């Protein structure tokens, strides 16, 4: 019901531009339609005697799946490293010691505002190809180095998530815990952070989806993930009519992986909003 009034009213606040990008079902529909059109055109124009587009795509699918598995593995690992380092970094940002607070703030801002590709190159070029711990030699293959490179911006974003979540807890919670003679550590560990986990989960999942679609960046530094393999497939086939369908096909893989995450994130956000 719309009520009219001459009084000045505060319109409901809407998140417009601030809404993070998420895959929606329409992206999927558009993607499938584009793929079908591209395949259709390709099949119609195919020179006699050459295998069809669909047959070629299916032939390479197992290899593409292998590459995609590496993308997922890198995203998992980068997320794990980024979270494991980012949470303590975020807590350091709310430390009572000014030097700790300032240095962790600087590290967070530095890695959050650096282009991911630049960080990737730095890690690729600066990290050694192996590290020696005592007598054992641990090799650092390219995919591992780029995973570390991807984990840096993740770490910085998680750090900001933690800081923001802690700040969003009403100050009364701190006061109540303090008045019950709880130490700062107890207050954080038992009162503040458990409430933060709920608030942090949707944006954390969003960050994971962003990280996953960023993993093809590693193709630039030569990791054999799905994007690199798609390029390899295209050059070995040497057929220009494959170019558009093949990349659309790769895009579909990422969509199918990230869309459920986007749906789950929205569902969680809605659930948490009610409380």
């Amino acid at each position, binding site marked *: 019901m719309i009520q009219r009034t001459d009084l000045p009213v505060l319109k409901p606040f809407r998140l417009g531009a601030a809404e993070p990008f998420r895959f929606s079902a329409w992206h999927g529909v558009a993607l499938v339609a584009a793929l079908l059109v591209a395949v259709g055109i390709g099949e119609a124009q195919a020179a006699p005697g050459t295998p069809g587009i669909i047959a070629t795509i299916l032939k390479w699918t197992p290899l593409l799946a292998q590459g995609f598995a590496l993308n997922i593995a890198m995203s998992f690992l980068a997320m794990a490293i980024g979270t494991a380092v980012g949470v303590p970094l975020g807590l350091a940002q709310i430390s009572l010691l000014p030097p700790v607070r300032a240095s962790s703030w600087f590290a967070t801002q530095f890695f959050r505002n650096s282009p991911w590709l630049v960080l990737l190159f730095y890690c690729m070029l600066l990290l050694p190809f192996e590290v020696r711990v005592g007598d054992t030699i641990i090799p650092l293959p390219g995919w591992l180095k780029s995973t570390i490179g991807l984990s840096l911006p993740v770490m910085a974003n998680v750090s900001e998530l933690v800081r923001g979540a802690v700040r969003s807890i009403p100050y009364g919670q701190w006061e109540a815990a*303090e*008045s019950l003679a709880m130490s700062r550590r107890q207050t954080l560990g038992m009162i503040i952070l458990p409430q933060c986990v709920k608030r942090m989960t949707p944006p954390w999942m969003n960050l994971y989806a962003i990280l996953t679609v960023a993993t093809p960046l590693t193709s630039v530094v030569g990791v054999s993930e799905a994007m690199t393999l798609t390029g390899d497939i295209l050059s070995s086939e040497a057929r220009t009519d494959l170019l558009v369908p093949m990349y659309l096909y790769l895009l579909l893989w990422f969509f199918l992986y990230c869309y459920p995450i986007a749906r789950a994130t929205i569902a969680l956000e809605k659930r948490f909003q009610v*409380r």
Partner: protein
Amino acid sequence: MMVWTPDQPLVRLAEVHKSFGAITVLKGVSMAVMKGEVICIIGPSGSGKSTLLRCINALVPIQRGSILVEGQEVNDPKLDKLALRRKVGMVFQQYNLFPHKTALENVMMAPIHVLKRDRGQVEAEALALIRKVRLQGKEHAYPGELSGGQQQRIAIARSLAMNPDVMLFDEVTAALDPETVKDVLVTIRELAEDGMTCMIVTHEMGFAREVADQVYFTDGGVLVEHGPPKQFFASPRDPRTRQFLDQIL
């Protein structure tokens, strides 16, 4: 250090000055509260009532003056804040229950983790406290499932679970629906009748008249006057007190 004995004031404030930046909130407040005494602090908004209570359990530091709680100086950089707060319970206007814990867990948390007491014993006491505030049956409810008045009574039980020597109440009924105010006031009155030392900041004049041993009136960061409720409400001496009482009664 002076040894505190129960014949001395449990809480003694002397010339307490507190400012937030350029804003002076307390301009030399002195008062003494004996063990078992119930005092109510009334006064207009912004007169420093809530700040006064927060100074006593060191939630906010003071700039000048002295606050003694059982002979322990609160305005001391070497103060063991946690030891002080074990003796001083506090209940807030906004209840501030921990929303991710049930009512029972809220009550049990501090005794178990701060006092390191045995869980079984704490649980028995917590259940008794929840009965005392008449919320049996709500032990496993989350704060979000309780009304404001119920939450506030759980908050009182949570403070009592620490077995404090003095309880501070900071406008505990100000955020409540009128119909739930009474339950909370009854709980506080029972507490006062049990001999708990209480310092109550309130806007409920009827309650103050009924329950207080001493009523203090603050205005502009100073204690204007105080007295037993009968005398205080019947014949206030200071014109500011008279004006305030005229406005609200």
